[in-house]
Structure formats: structure tokens, C-alpha cells
């Protein structure tokens, strides 16, 4: 919007300031995530490890533990938030998020089959051979099946609200199956499963990180490609169709993109809650717009910042203990959203 009137230009330059500020924040948090961990390493040692080289154990910590974790955190924050944004727009519902159609339930069903040992053909030995790829694969298959089912349904159903309701029902049904499996399973398996549901960022091998990054890039490109469609959907489906939106195509692209993003993240990191619902709202309130051409790049910065901050907190700097990242995203994020809402009386409605 280059040649717009004064007010538009004003908000344009505002956006430049906001983007600049958020970029600095995201970079600072990324660096902080490298410097702060549960092991106290002097910042100078971290810098030496990055630039010149330091003792082997410091390099291991920085490059094998903290760097992959920070990259994962930023990627997860971005992808889940993008996914949530698209779902909120598609369903015209502020409560929608990446998991609203049962993607995480599907993934957890897959994981439950592996961990809780209900798969006849996959013996523990096979799992051991596959390493931690087996959980990723299982989660992906679970999430993918739900995604394909929902895409099929959404192409058959006219009313998007019906799709949403079926998605919620499906998620509930799958959770019930997982509960039954939990009910009949062994203590240690159950514990492993519960810990999976708490989410984690620091367990990806380098090859898994590559897969995560590639998938995230693919999903993000789909998301960028649908930016115009998403804007049209803001008007509601009837108007969107009247201005030339191919609704069926838009639904498929958006659902495929979001499910792919959310499914991949869930496969690698477990179901990480809250981020996908909250960050889009935070971003809308920061940029004061619903224009996806602003929101999508905005979410790159806000999503990664929120997730990096959550990761730093989950390491409980200065203590030996760690918190499950899933609880942190909720405990950190919810007050932020409430605070933002209370501080913006004028923008009381989120959506």
C-alpha cells in the first residue's frame, strides 16, 4: 500500500517500527535461548563456542543441545501460530486453533498405539530399530489420517460450522479411544505417554530437525500462497464467493496447509497447546489489523518470540529442574492475552 493517503502511510510506518522492534525482540530471545539453559555457562564461553571454539562440553551443550532446541522453538512457535491464524479465519471463530479439527488427537492416537503397545505388527524391537523416528512416524500417520478425513468431509459439507463440529466430535472420539488404551496399559508406558503429551522441544536429532524445517517451510509457503484467500474469508463465505473466491479450493489449501504444519510439529514435539490460539490474537492486537499480508509476517516474529520465551522459562534458569513446555506456554501466554485484552478496551472484541 505505497500510494495510500496519509493515514495509511502513517500506519505503514507504524508497521515498519513494529516489525523492527519485534525482529530485535525475536533475535534477542533466540540469543538468550542459547545463553540461558539449565546448566550455567558463562556468556563469554558461549560466545567463544560460537565464534572461536571452546571446551568440548561447552560446544556440545551449545551446538547439540541449545541451538537445535532454539531453532525448534522458533519453528514450532511460527508454525503453530500460522496454523491457528488460518483456522481462526477459515472458521470465523476466535476459539479455533491448530488442534480444533482433531489433528493432535490423531497424532496422540498414533503415539498411543506405539507407546501403549497396542500395535500387533509393530513389536518393541521394530520400534527400537527405528529410534525416535517411530513416534514421529506414528504421530504423523495419526494426524494425517484425521486430516484426510476432515478434508474429505469439508469438501462434501457446505456449512463450515458443520465441519468444525464434526472436527470437535472426532477429536473427542479419538481421545476416548486413547483413554481406553491408557486405562489398559502398563505404568511405565503410561508415564512415557503422559510425558509425550506434555510436549518437548529438545529431543530432535539433526536429521529430524531438517525434516521439521523443510515441512515448516512447505506449510508456510502454502500459507503465504493462501494469503489473499484468507483475507477474502474475513468477509464470510458468501461475500468471499461473490468476490471470486473458489471456496472449495480455499478450504482444501488452508486445511492442508494448517494440518500439515500442526501435524508435523505435533509429531516431533508433542501437542503444544495454547500458542496456536493465543499468538494470532496477540499479533492482531499488536498490528491492529486483520490483513493477513501483515499478520503472517507478524506471526513469524511474535510466534517465535513467545515460544522462545516459553522455552527459556521452562528451563528454569538457575535451577536443576525443568518444566514441561506445554504448561509454560499456557501459564506464560494466558496472562499475556488477558493483559492485552484488558489494556485494549477499545479493541475488546478479539475477532
Amino acid at each position: 500500500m505505497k500510494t495510500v493517503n496519509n493515514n495509511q502511510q502513517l500506519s505503514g510506518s507504524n508497521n515498519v517500527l513494529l516489525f523492527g522492534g519485534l525482529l530485535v525482540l525475536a533475535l534477542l530471545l533466540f540469543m538468550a535461548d542459547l545463553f540461558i539453559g539449565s546448566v550455567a555457562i558463562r556468556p563469554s564461553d558461549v560466545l567463544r563456542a560460537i565464534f572461536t571454539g571452546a571446551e568440548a562440553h561447552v560446544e556440545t551443550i551449545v551446538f547439540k543441545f541449545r541451538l537445535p532446541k532454539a531453532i525448534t522453538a522458533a519453528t514450532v512457535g511460527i508454525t503453530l501460530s500460522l496454523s491457528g491464524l488460518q483456522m481462526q479465519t477459515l472458521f470465523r471463530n476466535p476459539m479455533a486453533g491448530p488442534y480444533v479439527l482433531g489433528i493432535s488427537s490423531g497424532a496422540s492416537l498414533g503415539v498411543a498405539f506405539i507407546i501403549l503397545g497396542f500395535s500387533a505388527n509393530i513389536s518393541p524391537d521394530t520400534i527400537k530399530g527405528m529410534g525416535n523416528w517411530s513416534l514421529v512416524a506414528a504421530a504423523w500417520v495419526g494426524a494425517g489420517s484425521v486430516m484426510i478425513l476432515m478434508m474429505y468431509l469439508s469438501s462434501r459439507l457446505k456449512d463450515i460450522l458443520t465441519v468444525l463440529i464434526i472436527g470437535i466430535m472426532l477429536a473427542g472420539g479419538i481421545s476416548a479411544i486413547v483413554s481406553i488404551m491408557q486405562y489398559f496399559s502398563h505404568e511405565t508406558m503410561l508415564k512415557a505417554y503422559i510425558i509425550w503429551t506434555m510436549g518437548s522441544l529438545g529431543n530432535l536429532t539433526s536429521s529430524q530437525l531438517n525434516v521439521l524445517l523443510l515441512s515448516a517451510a512447505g506449510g508456510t509457503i502454502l500459507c503465504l500462497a493462501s494469503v489473499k484467500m484468507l483475507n477474502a474469508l474475513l468477509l464470510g463465505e458468501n461475500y468471499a464467493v461473490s468476490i471470486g473466491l473458489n471456496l472449495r479450493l480455499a478450504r482444501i489449501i488452508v486445511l492442508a496447509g494448517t494440518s500439515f504444519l500442526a501435524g508435523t510439529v505435533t509429531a516431533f514435539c508433542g501437542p503444544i497447546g495454547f500458542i496456536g490460539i493465543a499468538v494470532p490474537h496477540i499479533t492482531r492486537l499488536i498490528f491492529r489489523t486483520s490483513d493477513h499480508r501483515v499478520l503472517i509476517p507478524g506471526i513469524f516474529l511474535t510466534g517465535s518470540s513467545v515460544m522462545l520465551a516459553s522455552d527459556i522459562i521452562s528451563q528454569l534458569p538457575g535451577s536443576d529442574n525443568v518444566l514441561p513446555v506445554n504448561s509454560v506456554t499456557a501459564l506464560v501466554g494466558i496472562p499475556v492475552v488477558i493483559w492485552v485484552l484488558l489494556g485494549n478496551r477499545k479493541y475488546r472484541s478479539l475477532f
Partner: protein
Amino acid sequence: MIHCRLIIPWVLSHILISLLLNACSGRGSGSEYDTLNEKQKHSQRASRFTLEENDSFTRLTIINPWQGATGADQVWHLVPSGSFPPENVDPSEIIYVPVKNVVCMSSTHLAMISALGEEESIKGVSGAGFLYNPELIKRYEQGFIKDVGYEDNLNKELILDLSPDLIMAYSIGSESAAYMTKLKELGIKVMYNADYLESDPLGKAEWIKLFGALYCCRERADSLFREISDEYHRLKKYILENTDSKPNVLLGLPFRDTWYISPGNSYISKLISDAGGNYLWNETYSSVSMPMGIENVYIKALNADIWLNPGSASAKDEIIAVDPRLASLPCFTRGSIYNNTKRINGRGANDYWESGTLNPHVLLRDIAAIMHPGLIAKKDLVYYRKIE
């Protein structure tokens, strides 16, 4: 057979309790234990039960039989069968001994009953798939022992049908005590065994005395325990006198990026230090395992000489599958990894969890042999085996 089933509150309590402990900076909350230990020190090592004999009956008190319980003592009056019940005692607190018909909820109970030669009294177990003792497996297959299920899917009708003199249960919290309330209402006596809360290896084994009282064979139980205790002390002294190095020991296996660390006051930590080792988290104090960041554990584990109990792993590959970064630990590359998985039968049951509790002297010997191979021959390991 399972020790703790309600895992969700358990995992949560892990997190919450370790948070709380951190917040009030460490050891303050240990006083409850200290006073308990003080009271019991002279008579016995076990801190969670007392036996008081008088002319007509034995008074058995089980002290706070779950983690964090206060004022939840269970009192039982063990009355020899055929005698008159004592006056002014609630009949629901009376158990006529010797008991003849028992349902056990944990494997450790089975080991102790078997050690006293009273296998025939076992009518029901929780989770027959976890039986190790071949005698008990045979009796299960012959139908003398029934599987009563576990926790919330306990087969209450089957239990009623067995009408046991006693259910030997355990509780991991007042909530889980609730699932037994129904049985109590039906007049079945549910005793909470708290051996799993004992952090002293001999204290755990000493629970055999409780079974001695229940089966009216206290002398046999006492002498069994004395043998165990004597052997344990003899070994401990021998190790102390003949070693000067204390190898550093790493315990457990992470799950994803969290490593649940046994605290320094735990049972296994005590065994390691009695066997002449230095558990890397010897200084920590907590009533539950502490969730720690994997990078934190990794840094400390660089100094580990020996790695014990790496989860359920039975091969190095399985450890790599959990987290490939662990393969760069010196104790991994040296191959000094041992797990308590030597005695696992075809059904997947591990005798470590069944008879291990009653044999702290054997465990001590195993761990000492791993840490001080010059002192005790490694080839005789009973519960432990090397991970290749």
C-alpha cells in the same frame, strides 16, 4: 505387577513437589522423616510400620502409608484365630492370624510371602502377567491364583468371591485409597503396605516381619531378616575397608528432553553409597524423582564412571534411540552400563521388582561388583547385566 498405577497424579506430583521443594530451598521438609527415624532407630530400620505385642494380640500400625500422608495411620489388631477378640476394638480392625487367604496387589508382597513358604495362601494377584516366581506362575496356571485386575478396573466381584482374609494393597495417594473404599464397605480388609516408601534398603526388606506377624511365624521372619541384615552389614564393612576409590554413578534414562533423577535420599542412592560408589546426585533431597533438563544431566554425566538402570534399555542401541547425544558420554563409550534386567522371564516380568526388595544384600553385592571388579567377581551378578 505394578507398584504405582495412577500415573497422572503421580507425574504431576513429581513436578509440583519438586517445585515446592526447590522453592523452600531443600531440606526443610525432611523433618517428618527425621522424627520418624528417630522413633524407630533402636528397634528397626523400617519406618512405616510398628508391631506391638501383648498377651492376647499384636497391634500393627502402618504409618502414613502413602506419600505426603499425615494422620492416615492404619491400625490392625492381629488376633490368633480361635481366641476371643479384644474388647473395645472395632471388629473391622481385627485380623485373625495366621491368614489363610490373601490377595496381593504388588509383586514385593508375593516375594515375602513366598520366602516364608506360604505361597498357598495367595489366592489373587494384580496383573498375573508380571509374575516371576515359577511356583506362583504354576499355581496361577493351575487356577489356584486368580488375576483380580488393577486399580480402577479391579474385578471387585472376583475379589468378593475369593472372600480373602486380607487384601495386601498399596496406595500412592489418598485419591487412590478411594478405589479400595468400596471393598472396605463390603467388609473386606484392605491393608496398605508402604514398603515402597522406605528409602533404606534394609528397611524395605524388614517388611518381611509384618508378614511374619500375619502368618504367625515371626521367628522365621526375624531370622530371615537377621541373615539379610548381617550379610548386608558384613558386605558393606568389607567394601568400606577394601576400597579407596568411589566411582561416580549415573542413574536412569531421559524421556524426550526431561530426565527424572532419583534424589540422593532414595533407596538406590543408598545402595550405591553402601556399595562404595558416589551417586552423582547424592546431595539432592526430595521425596520424589526430580525432572531435570537433559543438558544439565548431560554435563554432570560427563563425569560418570558407571551408568546404572538405564530405564528398560537392554542394549546400547536402545539408549541411542532414546537420544543419540547420550552416545558421546564417556561411560557409554567405555561400555560401563549395567541394568537390572538379568532376571526377566518369558512373560516380561522382572525379578528385580519381585524378589529384589527382599534381597538388598544381593543387590549390594551386584552393585559393588560392578563398581569394584577387583573386589567381587562380576561374573556372579544376580540381578544386573552389562548392556552391550
